[in-house]
């Protein structure tokens, strides 16, 4: 990890761990395991309520697959820019890291914009939170995913702002971007599962 760090600050070498993995990175991985169960429970709820709605609109009447495919593409591309931001951080290329962080933030915001548009148009077409079981489980599942994206945007924005104070990068700094990247990719992967289950698999 972080091969191109020229002079690691002295405190970095003091962080000796039993496994050699940084404590923070290990915690992020275990936290993401917990998040899997969080989304697992939400997705299960959605699947259990499939076909249980007593009134419409039903999923096939309202879901707009082309629009959401576009927003999915945007989110997938944000994972690419995130990888490049981590690459920049780990190779001491501060400018690249900042640029790619900014790109990731913007793509995340575009995804959230798509979601806001989707929610608004669904409400106009008569699907509210309490209309039927599809509405409740759809809004709660995708809403909490959107919340995760929003937290991610806040997380990355904090990283970008904090990096304005820096003129260089060490291994320790790169780790912060790496951790944010793990979170961001996780939220992205969860969306692929949600998109497949809600939009792509016909029922």
């Amino acid at each position, binding site marked *: 990890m972080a091969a191109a760090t020229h002079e690691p600050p002295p405190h970095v070498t003091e962080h000796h761990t*039993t496994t050699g*993995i940084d*404590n923070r990175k290990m915690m992020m991985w275990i936290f993401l395991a917990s*998040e899997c169960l*969080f989304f697992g*429970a939400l997705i299960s*709820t959605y699947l259990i309520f499939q076909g249980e709605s007593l009134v419409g609109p039903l999923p096939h009447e309202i879901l707009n697959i082309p629009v959401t495919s576009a927003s999915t593409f945007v989110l997938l591309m944000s994972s690419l820019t995130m990888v490049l931001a981590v690459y920049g951080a780990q190779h001491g290329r501060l400018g690249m890291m900042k640029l790619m962080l900014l790109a990731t933030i913007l793509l995340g915001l575009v995804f959230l914009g798509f979601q806001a548009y989707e929610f608004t148009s669904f409400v106009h077409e008569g699907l509210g939170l309490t209309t039927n079981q599809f509405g409740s489980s759809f809004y709660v599942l995708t809403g909490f995913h959107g919340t995760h994206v929003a937290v991610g945007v806040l997380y990355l924005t*904090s990283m970008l702002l*904090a990096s304005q104070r820096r003129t260089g990068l060490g291994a320790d700094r790169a780790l912060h971007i790496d951790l944010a990247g793990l979170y961001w990719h996780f939220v992205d992967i969860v969306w692929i599962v949600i998109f497949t289950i809600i939009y792509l698999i016909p029922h």
Partner: protein
Amino acid sequence: MATALGAMTHTQEDTGLWSWLTTVDHKRIGAVYTVAGFLFFLLGGFEAVMVRTQLAVPNGTVLDADRYNQFFTMHALTMIFLGVMPMGAGFFNYFIPLHVGARDVAFPRLNALSLWIFLSGGILLNSSFFLGGAPNGGWFGYAPLSSIEYAKSSGMTFYVVGLLVLGLSSLMASLNFAVTIINMRAPGMSMMRLPVFIWMVLVVAFLLILSLPVLTVGLLQLYFDRVWGTSFFSPSTGGDPILWQHIFWIFGHPEVYVLILPSMGIVSEVLPVMSKKPLFGYSAIVFAGAAIGVLGFGVWAHHMFTTGLGPVPQVVFSASTMAIGVPTGIKIFNWLGTMYGGNIRFVTATYFSVGFIALFTIGGISGVMHASPPVDGHHQDSYFVVAHIHYVLFGGAIMGIFSGFYYWFPKMSGRLLDEALGKLNFWTMFVGMNLTFFPMHFLGLAGMPRRIYTYDAGMGWDTWNMVATIGSYILAIGVLVFVVNVIKTMRKEPDAGNDPWGGATLEWAIPSPPPAHNFDVVPEVRDRDPLWYNRDHGIAPTPVPEHNHIHMPPPSYFPLIVALGVLLIAVGALSTLAIVGLGAVVSVYGIWGWALEPTD
């Protein structure tokens, strides 16, 4: 560095309020957890005594139906989330770093945050008594008893928000403990040399990490149902009340092991030391603990045999429930084998550990009885189940925690608890506990349902109810004897020395109470029982180098700010969204300050 020196001189010697509010020392945090947990335990005990007083005679008039529902619900919530878990967390905090040979946990400030969020959640939950009524739908919150239609007071909303807050605290603490145990071990402390207590904590941490998010989802859905009018759990519009039961017990059953495994770990530390021989079958007890952790996720529907699951799920969950009795039984034999042929010292800690084995075995056996669906059909919602859970949770978890109190109190305070009062403490609790809960087996089989606030005379329940109530008073006196013992002990001069028991684990090599940095020199571990190995092989302690540069984390007030933000979010969720926004801003400010704060 200046701040590091500051930390060393501050954390131990400073005793002002501010030093406690900003502490990141795992020992101080553990002490606050233990004391707070014990105070909540007394509160939960008071609620239990009120419940028993109401049920002492037929047609009791001490509590009305609504107040009774609040008391039995808050008794369970308090004991589980505010009593047993925090007292366990107190031991985890205090002894994980000492047992693995570390100077602190992996994330000291996160540890402080867990503590403050736990305290916020506990106070928030109990404030409901004064704000329109406490939760009254049982700790399991079954739909539709939790719905706005049938639970109109804000009690069940407090339940939702309170448990979300407490769950956040437990999740952060568990992440912290898991990383500490895996990643902060001293040289030579391989996984298979970890004390069994630490192994059990690791299993508990993963149980919580993987089960709490499921409860979180259920609680959020319940919040949506109650506040924003969705119907996840209300059948009139297509919702499913049984879904709540699945979600709750996927969390709830692992939670049972979260409560009992720490006590199993404590007993596994106490018995070898008091029997003066190594634990019998170390790897068997470790793998049995891990097996309980894994199987614990596959038994949840045994709480739901009477909901009409169908034959296949009933058979599967019946079999998995019986299977989980096997690793539990293995542990019983490990403890018996440890004592067998040992030179046993019958001090109070030993009494409580042996009491644990006896009472937990009774609770375990009645648990296996419920594993059979036809039998469970008769037991469901009867006092037989109340008897079972209290043999497991009081006879098991609480007896183990008291064993831990007597065993570790000298390390934490430098003083040995009084043995004569200790024996009195044990016997009053032991007799009171059996007198309270054993008759409930008879009541259950005689058909007395749980959660009823009164009953008519002539049902055949009068005698045993009176006996159970008398037992609960004796039990309460037993707990008060412990309080007297602690007060008396704290007024005497320290007399414990480093190692009053001839212990095997690392904490007994350092002073009591330990210095802020725990170990002058990070210990090197050569065996499962490191101190016994060093004693038997004549290995002297490593001399302390002349320039001993020890680097300790400085105190921080940011955990307090983040906890305040979380509390505001919770208060907002119970009142108005504007406060949620304010809480979010405070939290983000706190996290920013935290991230930018220099830690070295």
